[in-house]
């Protein structure tokens, strides 16, 4: 029942959109001719502008076309109608009459389509009817004009059926029947047809044996853990060996075990691989252990299950389908169950669905009237429930129940789902229908796929390149060896340094010679072993360590600590840190992510006077009342406007006071809020918690309470309001619930003074059409102006009106209401018509402005992200209007943007809308490009396009060829807003982008409904807010506030990416240069794979000599300071453009590596050619040269030298010297004391110096030229940081730091 904002947001070009008269929806729809044409024939013959394609563009050129997104589309109605084959068995049920009514045009076909659309899919779609997304969305496949009523029907079961049986005669309260509502059967009756008798699940109530007769339904135990004790080792190893490199190293390790090939020691070659595997296995094992533990806790919770005639506690895991379960207040619901009865005489139960869909308010669920009175512990219930097979649609449920020979239809409002909690209801009794893995919540939490970072994926490609390179090296060696062997074949026997023959045994034998062919093969394999570090396994270890270090800094970042929830940043996935630096798309949930999910009453316009003093006035002690000896105060305090309070205290004698009084009475009464008393520590005090489905209503009721109109009690027949200390009882004589066509609700109150008043509140668009304009025109004008002002502040506005009813008029209404609510045919439409008769000629009271409170810093964060080139998409389950209004307040949408709105109800209309929109946005692009070149202004000045699309349209677009078009369209848009999307659709949208671009996607959300999207995106971020832990549990990173996304991406992401990208390239270089030095030497050893560098040094090279600096630099180096990165969000583009790791850089590195290895190898080679140098001495020279070189190479690229970097780099070089000294001090090794001799010679030092200068010079020159003459943005920013830029003023960026440091209230 949230406020309805105009569908079209006023833009400067069409300032009056808001006041365009609302096209009555039925005017077009009710046209019987088009409705009656039947089947699909109508589909193509229709004028696209008229209805279905509801592309909605605010452009002057489009002004003549219908601006409203009305669309009737009887076509889909009729088409679905056509596809419906009604089995005769259902003839007696209510939907029979509904469909027949369509023909007699008693009921507008629109409505029908809504109910039909919910279950019947257009024939074209039939094949895909099993898809989860489509089934999920099938509820909304009607045309768009009824879309909202459908969804509201699902979400709150309100919709059209505001049936309340009220008798005027006795003004007494009488329970309102909620149980079997007309609309329920209307909306769901068709489901019976859809339920395939064979496929359906049949549950015999309280009869386990019979239920499980046909199939054995699984138990209620759940399992989220990946491994069991037995499967851990194989599965974990299997997963780990998905890394190509691991397999490679396994093969190498195995090869080295062959005696002919043993180049290195046996254990030594396995050690590194084993170490990596072990560390990862321990980590995975621990994580899985925690999942096991939580599973066990969950499975062992107790539920009270009917056994015999009594409810006994039973573990959750033992609950079976068909069992009857009783749940007490505040208990969690163990499985999906159909309600039988509740503690409420009307059969209402309230559930909290926070863990399911992320909404924190209470939802109402109903037990069927027919089962309400049955007490299973007293009398046995027999009956059966036929329901659809388990699916993921948490908003849909189609079933019917046969009980006592009656057939009742069941809908989503009759089922309570696992993951919810029972609230505000003493107990409920229900039948388990889906248990364990088949519950909707479990089906929705698809297992988290392990993610791999983009950089790593790329890297794997380069590693394949490197392996190709390795193979080439090995081939060269073995080919040369082959040639040499062939050439010297005859001399091999006694060649002094080869000596094939072994004379030591009795007979002369070949020694270590296996024939020409095998020798070649062995040479090849041995060269693989010798050159193995070409593929840097150490890189994987380094990456893990670097990520841990990066995660440490992200967790410890004080700017990502949320004080209000006392939550730090959490790194839940350790392998995608660097992806944060490359994000191109952010998919954000709205509620709880962008907003705090708290509505706040801000200001009101009453009787033409704007009262907005509350915004600035200090907080006061809230209003309180005493009830039953307890002092109750509202849970939320609202800042009140002092003038208004003064006015209220002065009484309602004045004309002004009277209207104010009526206004607040309307706020307090015209809603469906249920007040709840919450006990506090103070025994004499209590808090009044207003529970309701609409946060707007809550805010209004709290506001009313703050001004002394405190709602104390609400039953279905009356309400009690404490008005300025005077408790008054009002009889609720009638209530027209909110529906999205009227966009308003009304309540008829029998006041204590025997007058009958109708209070109406609703969206300004529809309210002004029912307000009597003959009276108080100036007031209306003033109110309109105020509403405009409010909404431009981003407030959600509601207009309140009233009228007094005379007794006769009321009688008239009452009789027609009675008639309508008992009507069998077209009840909802009749009721709406009845509402229409009374909701007119209203006196305007005023309007309210409610702030959907954005989280702190959200607009600034979005602005920063946008400047950084990140496309922000908002995916919300909210209504379009709400979404758009949040779009404005969060600066996502601006008034300068052109909005494209797509609400379509069929695939064809979707296609048309998309095509039109693409054409138009193309045109806009060219126009703006032209103007840009004309004016020479920056890209920000051009026309920006915002796409707003709803879930219904997405049903047709996702998973079809239209995806392409949507994607194309989206690529023209700066902003995309998707409203009314179901959880799985969110994932579908993310997949739409993810599968079509190489760009990185990030999804951020806080509720369980965001889980699928979080898991689908490359990076999933969970907000650890109030909305349960599901999102956090499935996310890769979790944090307290949306605004932390800015430091996370722009600062940490940038750093991580830059560091990791550099580290990978450096590691390639580091290992390749070493391998190449080995390779060059092999060419001078008769291709026999001798190494001059000792085995020990080869082993220690990537462990001690060069490992620490790259890790330290990978963790600590910063190319730019936090401040610069936040000041210039555009610098984030470096990651998006893949500036730190791309094939160009890779190949440059390869060339550089070649040169450096040549310098290292050949300078000593020529210097010592024909000299008496021995192998160990020159080996030591090469070792030291290459280690110093690679460390200095790193040093040259280090951007920020702090003491740790110094220690790591110089320390490594020193450590290498020490190691070389130590190795050469071992007498049993060949190279004993070599280093001590060689360092005494001048040529050693000359070689060393020459190598380093000659090797580094080219890189240094290129680096300098590149930095100086083709500076990257990062480079300029670095210079700016160092030298400042006095000439240029700082750009007008929002100082994130200042905002971030602000303490939260």
């Amino acid at each position, binding site marked *: 029942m949230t406020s309805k904002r105009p569908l079209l947001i006023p833009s400067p070009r069409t300032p009056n959109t808001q006041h365009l008269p609302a096209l009555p929806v039925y005017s077009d729809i009710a046209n019987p001719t088009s409705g009656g044409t039947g089947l699909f024939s109508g589909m193509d013959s229709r004028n696209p502008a008229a209805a279905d394609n509801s592309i909605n563009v605010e452009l002057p050129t489009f002004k003549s076309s219908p601006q409203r997104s009305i669309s009737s589309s009887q076509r889909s109605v009729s088409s679905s109608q056509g596809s419906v084959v009604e089995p005769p068995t259902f003839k007696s049920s209510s939907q029979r009459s509904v469909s027949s009514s369509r023909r007699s045009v008693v009921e507008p076909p629109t409505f029908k389509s809504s109910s039909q659309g919910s279950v019947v899919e257009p024939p074209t779609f039939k094949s895909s009817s099993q898809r989860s997304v489509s089934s999920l969305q099938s509820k909304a496949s009607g045309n768009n004009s009824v879309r909202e009523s459908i969804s509201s029907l699902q979400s709150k079961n309100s919709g059209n059926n505001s049936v309340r049986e009220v008798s005027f005669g006795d003004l007494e309260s009488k329970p309102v029947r909620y149980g079997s509502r007309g609309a329920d059967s209307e909306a769901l009756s068709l489901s019976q047809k859809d339920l395939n008798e064979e496929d359906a699940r049949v549950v015999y109530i309280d009869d386990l044996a019979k239920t499980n007769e046909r199939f054995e339904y699984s138990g209620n135990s759940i399992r989220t853990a990946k491994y069991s004790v037995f499967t851990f080792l194989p599965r974990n190893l299997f997963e780990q060996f998905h890394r190509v490199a691991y397999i490679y190293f396994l093969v190498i390790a195995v090869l080295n075990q062959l005696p002919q090939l043993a180049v290195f020691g046996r254990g030594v070659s396995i050690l590194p691989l084993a170490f990596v595997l072990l560390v990862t296995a321990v980590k995975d094992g621990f994580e899985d252990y925690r999942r096991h533990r939580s599973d066990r806790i969950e499975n062992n919770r107790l539920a009270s299950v009917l056994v015999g005639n009594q409810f006994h506690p039973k573990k959750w895991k033992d609950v079976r389908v068909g069992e009857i379960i009783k749940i007490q207040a505040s208990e969690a619901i163990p499985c999906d169950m159909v309600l039988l009865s509740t503690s409420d005489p009307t059969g209402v139960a309230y559930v909290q669905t926070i863990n399911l869909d992320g909404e924190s308010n209470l939802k109402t669920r109903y037990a069927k009237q027919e089962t309400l009175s049955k007490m299973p512990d007293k009398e046995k219930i027999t009956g059966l429930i036929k329901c659809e097979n388990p699916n993921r649609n948490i908003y849909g449920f189609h079933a019917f129940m046969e009980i006592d020979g009656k057939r009742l239809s069941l809908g989503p409002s009759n089922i309570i789902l696992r993951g919810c909690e029972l609230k505000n209801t003493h107990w409920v009794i229900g039948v388990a229908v889906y248990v364990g893995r088949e519950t909707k919540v479990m089906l929705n939490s698809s297992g988290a796929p392990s993610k791999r970072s983009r950089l790593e994926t790329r890297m794997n490609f380069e590693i394949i390149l490197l392996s190709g390179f390795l193979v080439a090296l090995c081939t060269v060696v073995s080919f040369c060896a082959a040639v040499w062997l062939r050439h010297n074949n005859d001399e091999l026997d*006694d060649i002094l340094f080869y000596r094939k023959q072994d004379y030591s045994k009795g007979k002369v034998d070949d020694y270590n010679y296996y024939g020409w062919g095998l020798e070649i093969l062995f040479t090849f394999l041995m060269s693989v072993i010798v050159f193995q570090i070409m593929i840097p396994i150490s890189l994987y270890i380094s990456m893990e360590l670097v990520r841990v270090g990066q995660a440490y800094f992200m967790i*410890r970042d004080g700017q990502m600590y949320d004080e209000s929830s006392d939550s730090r940043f959490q790194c839940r996935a350790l392998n995608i840190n660097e992806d944060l630096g490359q994000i191109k798309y952010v998919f954000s949930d709205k509620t709880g992510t962008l907003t705090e999910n708290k509505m706040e009453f801000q200001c009101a316009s009453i009787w033409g006077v704007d009262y907005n003093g509350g915004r600035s006035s200090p907080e006061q002690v809230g209003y309180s009342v005493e009830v039953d000896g307890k002092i109750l105060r509202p849970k939320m305090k609202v800042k009140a406007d002092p003038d208004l309070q003064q006015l209220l205290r002065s009484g309602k004698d004045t004309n002004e006071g009277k209207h104010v009084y009526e206004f607040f009475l309307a706020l307090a009464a015209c809603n469906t809020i249920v007040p709840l008393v919450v006990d506090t520590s103070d025994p004499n005090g209590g808090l009044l918690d207003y529970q309701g489905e609409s946060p707007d209503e809550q805010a209004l009721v709290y506001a009313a309470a703050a001004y002394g109109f405190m709602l104390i009690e609400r039953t279905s027949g009356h309400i009690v309001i404490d008005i300025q200390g005077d408790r008054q009882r009002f009889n609720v004589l009638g209530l027209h619930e909110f529906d999205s066509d009227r966009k308003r609700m009304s309540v008829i109150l029998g006041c204590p003074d025997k007058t009958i008043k109708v209070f109406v509140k609703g969206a300004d668009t529809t309210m002004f059409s029912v307000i009597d304009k003959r009276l108080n025109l100036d007031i209306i004008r003033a109110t309109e102006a105020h509403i405009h002002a409010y909404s431009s502040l981003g407030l959600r506005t509601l207009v309140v009106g009233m009228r007094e009813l005379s007794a006769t008029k009321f009688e008239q209404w009452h009789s027609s209401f009675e008639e309508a609510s008992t009507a069998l045919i077209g009840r909802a439409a009749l009721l709406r018509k009845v509402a229409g008769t009374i909701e007119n000629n209203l006196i305007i009271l005023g309007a309210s402005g409610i702030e959907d409170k954005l989280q702190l810093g959200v607009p600034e964060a979005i602005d920063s992200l946008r400047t950084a080139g990140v496309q922000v998409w908002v995916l919300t389950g909210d209504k379009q209007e709400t979404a758009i209004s949040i779009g404005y307040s969060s600066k996502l949408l601006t008034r300068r943007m052109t909005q494209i709105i797509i609400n379509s109800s069929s695939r064809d209309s979707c296609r048309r809308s998309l095509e039109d929109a693409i054409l138009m946005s193309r045109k806009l692009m060219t126009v703006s490009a032209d103007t840009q070149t004309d004016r020479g202004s920056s890209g920000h000045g051009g026309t920006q396009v915002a796409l707003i699309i709803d879930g219904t349209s997405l049903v047709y677009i996702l998973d079809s060829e239209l995806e392409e078009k949507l994607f194309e369209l989206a690529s023209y848009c700066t902003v995309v807003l998707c409203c009314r999307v179901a959880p799985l659709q969110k994932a579908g949208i993310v997949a739409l982008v993810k599968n079509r671009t190489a760009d990185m996607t990030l999804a951020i959300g806080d509720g369980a409904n965001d889980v699928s999207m979080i898991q689908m995106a490359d990076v999933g971020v969970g907000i650890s807010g109030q909305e349960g832990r599901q999102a956090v549990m499935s996310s890769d990173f979790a944090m307290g506030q949306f605004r932390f996304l800015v430091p996370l991406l722009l600062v940490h992401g940038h750093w991580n990416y830059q560091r990791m990208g550099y580290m990978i390239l450096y590691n390639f270089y580091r290992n390749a240069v070493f391998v190449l030095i080995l390779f060059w030497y092999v060419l001078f050893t008769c291709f026999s794979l*001798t190494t001059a560098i000792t085995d020990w040094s080869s082993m220690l090279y990537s462990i001690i000599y060069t490992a620490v600096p790259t890790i330290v630099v990978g963790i600590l180096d910063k190319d730019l300071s936090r401040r610069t990165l936040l000041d210039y969000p555009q610098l984030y583009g470096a990651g998006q453009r893949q500036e730190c790791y791309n094939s160009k850089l890779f190949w440059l590195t390869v060339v550089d590596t070649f040169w450096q290895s040549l310098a290292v190898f050949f300078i000593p080679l020529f210097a010592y050619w*024909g000299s008496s140098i021995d192998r160990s001495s020159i080996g030591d020279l090469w070792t030291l040269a290459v280690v110093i070189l690679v460390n200095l190479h790193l040093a040259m690229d280090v951007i920020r*030298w702090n003491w740790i*970097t110094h220690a790591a780099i110089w320390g490594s070089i020193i450590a290498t010297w020490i190691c070389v000294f130590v190795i050469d001090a071992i007498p049993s090794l060949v190279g004993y004391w070599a280093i001590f001799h060689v360092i005494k010679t001048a040529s050693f030092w000359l070689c060393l110096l020459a190598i380093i200068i000659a090797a580094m*010079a080219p890189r240094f020159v290129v680096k300098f030229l590149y930095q*100086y003459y083709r500076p990257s943005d990062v480079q300029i920013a670095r210079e700016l940081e160092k030298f400042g830029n006095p000439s240029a003023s700082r750009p007008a960026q929002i100082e994130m730091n200042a905002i971030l440091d602000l303490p939260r209230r």
Partner: protein
Amino acid sequence: MEAKDGASNPTSSTKKKSRKPKYSKFTQQELPACKPILTPASVILIFVAIGIVFIPIGLASLFASERVVEIVHHYDKDCIPLKYADNMLAYIQSSKTNKTCVRKLTIPKQMKSPVYIYYQLDHFYQNHRRYVKSRSDKQLRSKSYENTTDDCAPERYTAKGVIVPCGLVAWSLFNDTYKFSVNNKQLGVSKKDITWKSDQKNKFGSDVYPKNFQSGGLIGGAKLNSSIPLSEQEDLMVWMRTAALPTFRKLYGRIEVDLEADAVITVTIENNYNTYSFRGNKKLVLSTASWIGGKNYLLGVAYLTVGGLCLFLALAFLLLYLIKPRPLGDISYLSWNRSASGGHIY
């Protein structure tokens, strides 16, 4: 409108330990750091400095190399009697043939003592994998490891027992000998201290005596006097320190007198070593030494080249800088500013 529940109560929140990360310069990644940036001035300076250092070094080493007097005499072919010219292998492998060969060398320039005598082998892969592995350093060191010959195949043992020193390296010990005389006067050749002190002291055991050496089916090279411990077999030590490259010299001895220019030295060579089977070369080298080692122009040339290039680069950068300077840290060069103003495209 603020939730008034207990959580936000200030007293309770202070009681509960806050998870707020403690501030430190380290955790906030704000450690004091220096941020060097390549400015044209610094780069030009670096290159000038390298040039200034390298060119003198290059000149000095060229000069030193130039002063080294070196005589290289390639004798393997010349020492084959004519009748064996077509069958050198038979000549060298036969124990009957007379291997003595007399050569005359003219000293081009005065050679100050000590004059080092080397033998140089070409195409001899002392670094071949099979070859370098075929030795036992443990056995060389100590008598107690006499039987540690695992890696020594195919020269591990003979019928009589373990070979000491085992392995191909020792087996192929060089066995040509040289005698020098000037004007029929014998020149003394010092063969002491031609190897590293460390080898004598620690690597080759004083209690290890040659055993069964060169008594197998195939004779590889020199025989060793089995009454002298390995620690005093300096030729072996020199040989066992295997060369890094296929063309190498090994120290044979020293002549401790100056050799005058134009003097003719008569060298009597015992040409025993078989390099003919692998088309290797044997050379006799007489050389003086300098601080840079033997005669080698490469380092000098390399230093001069690098130094020269650096000076050239410094000059080039200087010119570039003067012609086309770019102000450092000018935000108008940022890509998003650049595309707007359209200028500054390099």
